[in-house]
């Protein structure tokens, strides 16, 4: 009696999830797998093989993998330093990384446009030190920078959380048993932080792969990512079938990523918070 009444409490959410999560995804699949007459077709999905779309997908994959790698190599040392700082205010560290989000995402990315310009702040600084100028605005490198800038917090926080959870006694035991710092890192710290790393990779790779805003603002609208192609199909070209078909291709990558994280992070330990 009591239990069944408690279960009823989940019904508003279940109804909500079915209407606003499951059904809409079903519609993407419906549109993606049919043509304008409503007949089944794989054409929209296979359209990704066409030269133009394949190029966009390859660039997106390349840039997002590069940004994920850069984020990882920047974030891991940072997370280690933060985890060892003994800041007992866990929420404070989370806040520092969430705080920039209160300045609009588009404005923050636009600010990089100004910072990176030929006569922008960064080049002025570089010329002051007689260093060669940095001409990366409107190139793929600017897009990578924008991705790293926007998604770095999503790599730092899960790794930080995983590192904080490691029992210091395990690390001390390794040291007592004669492991040097490098061995301790590769045998203890790194393996124990894998759930955090995996969820960090997911949280950076997926938004980077699918963005259309960063490429538009920093790539000078010359570089089309797969996200830009899909966005244009929906807002300008009005071909929802093709846009949905390409979205299905994106979802395949998302599924691969989710499957990988399910294998490495069985208990769902690697969280953002």
């Amino acid at each position, binding site marked *: 009696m009591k239990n069944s009444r408690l279960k009823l409490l989940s019904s508003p959410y279940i109804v909500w999830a079915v209407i606003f999560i499951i059904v809409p995804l079903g519609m993407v699949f419906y549109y993606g797998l049919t043509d304008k007459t409503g007949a089944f077709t794989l054409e929209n999905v296979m359209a990704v093989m066409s030269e133009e779309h394949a190029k966009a997908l390859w660039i997106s994959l390349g840039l997002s993998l590069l940004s994920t790698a850069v984020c990882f190599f920047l974030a891991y040392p940072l997370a280690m330093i933060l985890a060892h700082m003994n800041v007992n205010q866990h929420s404070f560290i989370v806040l520092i990384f969430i705080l920039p989000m209160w300045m609009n995402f*588009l404005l923050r990315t636009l600010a990089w446009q100004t910072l990176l310009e030929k006569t922008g702040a960064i080049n002025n600084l570089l010329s002051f030190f007689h260093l060669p100028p940095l001409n990366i605005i409107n190139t793929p490198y600017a897009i990578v920078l924008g991705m790293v800038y926007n998604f770095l917090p999503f790599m730092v926080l899960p790794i930080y959380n995983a590192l904080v959870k490691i029992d210091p006694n395990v690390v001390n035991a390794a040291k007592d048993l004669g492991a040097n710092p490098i061995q301790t890192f590769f045998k203890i710290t790194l393996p124990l932080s894998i759930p955090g790393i995996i969820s960090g990779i997911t949280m950076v790779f997926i938004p980077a792969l699918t963005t259309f805003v960063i490429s538009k603002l920093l790539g000078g609208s010359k570089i089309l990512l797969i996200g830009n192609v899909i966005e244009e199909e929906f807002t300008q070209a009005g071909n929802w079938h093709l846009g949905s078909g390409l979205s299905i291709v994106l979802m395949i990558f998302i599924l691969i990523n989710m499957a990988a994280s399910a294998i490495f992070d069985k208990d769902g330990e690697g969280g953002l918070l």
Partner: protein
Amino acid sequence: MIKTTAKKIYIVLIFIFLYAPIATLMVFSFNKSRTRAKWGGFTFQWYLSLLGNREIMQALWNTLFIALVSSLSAVVIGTVACIAINNMNKRRRAVILGITNIPMLNADIVTGISLMLLFISLGFKFGLGTILLSHITFNIPYVILCVMPRMKQLNPSTYEAALDLGASPVLAFFKVVFPDILPGVLSGFLMAFTMSLDDFIITHFTKGAGVDTLSTKIYTEVKKGIKPEMYALSTIIFVTVLLLLFLVNKAPKEKNERRI
């Protein structure tokens, strides 16, 4: 010694990287010149003309209204769902939490177009309502993510004890369970509010013509050039949040000290 200095320098460099664009935007808000390219002298005029700019103010109210209503709704639906999920068997729980993860793991662009297709097929009129529904949808998972761990730590006997002592389930919930999960509920609310405020992609696909949030307003202004009032407004929002967080972080500490 050298090691700790190197660590400090590394942290400082990362924070410069994270906060340099924000500082840049703040500088823009005091720039007399209308373009971002050059510095035309210091001025407060954008802060004054901001109040008279009806379009930006309307976008601001839309943004705040959507963020507040969507995060409050998400908190109610999400918290209630957590109570139920916590009492489910393992398999059902795994299924529901799996579905909950979809909007968080899925790409925003896919969530956006999927909701757009839904609203079109249902014949909804695109406007504040559709934005609100979308924001509630992507906010609920953040609430569940924050509340669920608290729920798991609860001692079920305290709730049962309250029932045994004659409290109604609702009273027992608010007197016993709710205070324990409150930190999770609050951080869920804050997270949802922030996500809603910062969202552009999903709003872009689910908004109607003529209805703008700050994000979509900025996006349409990108080509024409951002109005300096926008920088002023962003600076005000950022500084307000910074002050609020500072106060919130300070308040509980004082209380604790007094108690000791």
